[in-house]
């Protein structure tokens, strides 16, 4: 019953910032209070404030300029929602006619009963449903994939799962990374060629599950949960390897999108799944993926 426990010394801890030096162009980082732009002719966006006719940064981050709108986006922060974002969320509490869900943001988000299509598929009359019925569809702790419908003024997000893509998630593994690392793309549902399906939530919650056959796309929009059948061993190995690769990329601060994950997966094939937890293996995968991405860009 040998265990492969390993204790490394902090002395030979991997130097993670070595990865960063190779970045060719480092974006200009603004610190709070630093003058970003004179106020004339520009509009003030998130993360900035105006003082004696200058727009100053109120967070440490990178400037984002959309023609006249100046905003400073912090590097590491909890998820700031935008309408149309694909998110993965976990139900915290069942309330009257709505669910409170956790989306890794400052305030818990809301999933209204009206913004969910019930298993019947048709629009049931929204009478005074009591909590008992709602709990049958979504109970505390359940995971869902959803889209941000709108944002209330104090910042809480209202989600909706009306299309067939979204709904309750069944068997699989959830990985939590910094939201800023998930690249904002058109498609966030991917069926990776390596044999697993991934939902890259913009809020940093990434869901890895056995590959979806083509017809039932995404969360089947419904609430069915096949708890019965076990996931076969080979799919399980792919999922575990994918989970470790995503955590490796996150540790090396590389952007997460389908190509970078696929590259990392290919690099990791020469290691065992559980070896991907060791830091020098993570460093190696991060380095190789970064190199491949860079010459992929040219």
């Amino acid at each position, binding site marked *: 019953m040998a265990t492969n426990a390993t204790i490394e010394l902090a002395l030979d801890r991997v130097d993670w910032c070595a990865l960063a030096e190779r970045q060719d162009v480092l974006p200009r980082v603004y610190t709070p209070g630093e003058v970003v732009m004179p106020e004339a002719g520009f509009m003030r966006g998130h993360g900035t404030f105006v003082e004696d006719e200058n727009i100053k940064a109120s967070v440490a981050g990178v400037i984002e300029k959309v023609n006249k709108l100046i905003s400073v986006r912090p590097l590491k922060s909890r998820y700031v929602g935008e309408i149309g974002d694909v998110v993965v969320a976990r139900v915290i509490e069942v309330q009257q006619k709505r669910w409170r869900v956790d989306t890794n943001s400052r305030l818990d988000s809301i999933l209204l009963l009206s913004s969910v299509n019930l298993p019947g598929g048709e629009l049931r009359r929204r009478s*005074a449903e*009591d*909590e*008992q019925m709602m709990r049958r569809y979504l109970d505390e702790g359940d995971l869902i994939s959803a889209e941000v419908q709108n944002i209330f003024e104090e910042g809480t997000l209202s989600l909706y799962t009306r299309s067939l893509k979204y709904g309750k998630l069944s068997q699989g593994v959830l990985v939590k990374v910094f939201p800023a690392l998930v690249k904002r793309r058109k498609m966030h549902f991917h069926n990776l060629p390596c044999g697993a399906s991934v939902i890259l939530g913009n809020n940093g919650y990434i869901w890895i599950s056995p590959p979806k056959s083509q017809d039932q796309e995404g969360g089947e929009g419904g609430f069915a949960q096949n708890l019965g059948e076990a996931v076969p061993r080979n799919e399980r190995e792919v999922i575990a390897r994918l989970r470790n690769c995503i955590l490796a990329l996150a540790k090396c601060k590389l952007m997460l999108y389908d190509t970078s994950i696929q590259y990392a997966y290919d690099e990791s094939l020469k290691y065992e799944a559980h070896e991907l937890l060791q830091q020098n293996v993570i460093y190696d995968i991060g380095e190789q993926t970064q190199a491949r991405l860079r010459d992929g860009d040219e």
Partner: protein
Amino acid sequence: MSSEGDENTVVCLPGERLCRVEDNVVLGIGTYEQNGYIYASKSGVVNIEESGENCQVVSVHKPGFHLTIPATGDVVTARVLVTTPKFAKCAIFCVRNVLLESSYRGLLRKEDVRETEKDRVDIYKSFKPGDVILARVINQMEQSFLITTAETELGVVVAYASDARKTRVPMVPVGWSEMQCPLTTIKEPRKVAKVLPESSINIIK
């Protein structure tokens, strides 16, 4: 395994195997099912009642006091403590016919007061603090029980006139939505429960 009582009462202790699980056997209170057999989870006398078509309910009844917790579907007696426009807070002090030692908190929401025109219910016209009501438990929420009086047999059973009189005389129900104080003949609106008369003695014919 359970030892025989004097008549044919079967006394059992927790953990004793009662019978196999067949399709027509239903688990009653005080029992639990484990890999194919029904086991007793309370000590007491085993009784098997027929209920519906040849389906038996195996339950363990503990003689003397036995602790009851309001379960969904039980008819409970409660006293109204606080009434607000949206709901009425009550203290459940008796479950079925077992008087509880400590009262549990009950919540009666506006839409659970009446079956008909649920949303046009006015709590103040149905209950007053101090009334004793019969209600049925819907489910158990965080800290309290959700109860409903949306049946004819449920509602106010004992009510006292709201004008502060020394002698608190229980009012007499006249009709389904009104009660009258025998002394001051004041009528007050209540959601009255139709109490089935078989146990009450009708002195005045």
